[in-house]
């Protein structure tokens, strides 16, 4: 199995695994970003399964830990979160270029990984290195359509009303808890970002799961959230209502890996695509 472990980066603070296909150097490199705080193997080892499948299809891969996640340390530099993510991904691209000969890349991220992939892809010059991105449960917003689909079936359900009232009473008694979270980008900004990515030639694949049904509940919501760009041929979108957020079942992981593989083959065919 052609996988190599590296400590790399501008402060040698990052840890990652490069997987190379048997068919030689070059081609499109695929970089997998951390999902939340799970280290580079991914939730239920999803990133290992995906990386090895893509290697078998001819794509070099790098799964690595961003600064301070998993086995990676801090760079020691004073950087904003955006600067740090972009610098880490730059380091990752440099490693994959050096060891697999890749010059153009695709980012894959789940949840916060999708957010980080978006952070890199929205930069004005991202197309110089990036060819595309796979956003798994990336940005999403509750739309009017979401609310209708969510609340209408519940209107006449008295048990739900009583549970809602009980919950509200409990929350009122507990008082306001301090919240520590990163505010997501506004919907209009993300919509403009996606339009900008497509205008610069990036190919996008959005796969959203039933695990985020508290704010995303139908395939139509892609268009409701992001507008006409979702109809662009450069954009592929799937809504997998049956799966959970982190693909805990083997059959769901296999489905997802198949979707990503098919999207890559369609958009960035390798010379030897089909070798496995």
């Amino acid at each position, binding site marked *: *199995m052609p*996988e*190599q*472990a*590296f*400590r790399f980066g501008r*402060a*040698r*603070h990052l*840890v990652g*695994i490069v997987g190379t296909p048997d068919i030689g150097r070059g081609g499109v490199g695929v970089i997998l970003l951390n999902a939340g*705080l*799970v*280290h*580079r*193997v991914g*939730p*239920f*080892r999803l990133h*290992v*399964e995906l990386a*090895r499948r893509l290697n078998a299809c001819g794509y070099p891969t790098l799964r690595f830990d961003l600064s301070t996640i*998993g*086995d990676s*340390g801090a760079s020691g530099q004073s950087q904003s979160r955006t600067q740090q993510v972009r610098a880490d991904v730059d380091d990752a691209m440099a490693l994959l270029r050096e060891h697999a000969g890749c010059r153009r890349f695709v980012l894959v991220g789940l949840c916060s990984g999708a957010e980080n992939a978006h952070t890199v892809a929205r930069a004005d010059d991202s197309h110089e290195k990036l060819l595309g991105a796979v956003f798994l449960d990336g940005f999403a917003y509750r739309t009017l359509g979401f609310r209708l689909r969510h609340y209408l079936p519940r209107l006449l359900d008295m048990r739900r009303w009583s549970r809602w009232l009980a919950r509200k009473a409990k929350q009122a008694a507990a008082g306001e808890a301090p919240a520590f979270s990163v505010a997501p980008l506004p919907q209009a900004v993300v919509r403009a970002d996606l339009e900008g990515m497509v205008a610069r030639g990036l190919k996008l694949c959005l796969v959203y799961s*039933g*695990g985020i*049904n508290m704010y995303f509940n139908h395939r139509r919501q892609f268009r409701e959230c992001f507008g006409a760009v979702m109809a662009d041929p450069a954009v592929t979108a799937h809504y997998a*209502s*049956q*799966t*959970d*957020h*982190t693909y*805990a*079942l*083997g*059959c*769901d992981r296999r489905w997802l890996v198949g979707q990503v593989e098919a999207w890559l083959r369609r958009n960035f065919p390798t010379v030897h695509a089909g070798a496995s």
Partner: protein
Amino acid sequence: MTHVDSEQPFFFGRDGELFGIHHAAAVRGGRAVLLCAPLGQDYIRCHRLYRQLATALAAQGMPVLRFDYYGCGDSAGDSTQVDWRRCLSDTLAAAGELRRRSGAERVLAFGARLGGSIALAVGAAARFDDIVVWDPVIDGSAYVAAQDALQDAMRLDTRRFIRPRAWADAQGQWTGFAVSPLLRGQIGGLHAGWSAAPSLLLDSLAAKPPHDWLGVVADPARIRRLDATTPWDDLERLETAILSHALVQAVSDHWKEHAYA
């Protein structure tokens, strides 16, 4: 050597199939520590804690090796290929690798859950000088029943799935990881009675009074109860990291106190 440079990732073992991270110690002593990981989701949840423990032990002058068994983590193989006997032989290989890299004569071992069971099962063959375990699995059939129940509850959990999933979608897996019939049988047959015994057993199971551990540790003084219960099999915290400052402190202190034993 900077802090991060002291943690070196690499592949080792037969055909370079095993992944490990070696934590070099700033000052070399005669002892090194092998960290035996648990399996499945416990491995993912404990990853951070294992790194913290390795950092703490290396700071005390003990080089540490963390590694992944075949079919786990970054090592070769897929989850369906995890085999208990291979886990044992991988642990032997890792102990040899640690001796070679660190130059240490004495190797100590730590393991949580099934990692603790592995450390005990292979303790004599690996010539571990000392073993510390944390909530080791000593009743395989009870463990299998608990994992089956957890998997069934997970597929029916409508906080995870919009609709309950079919049994066929979830069979042959334990909370996110494929489990072959072979591994299931091997773990189901586990029971206390290993030739090696731990010098310290850290207990954080809610339902286990200390006397349940006496098949592993004859001397109750070697059992220490951690204040906080660890939610190993709690579906609501299935994807929450297991962190325990008390555990890191207890293991570090134990091996500091027994440095000259």
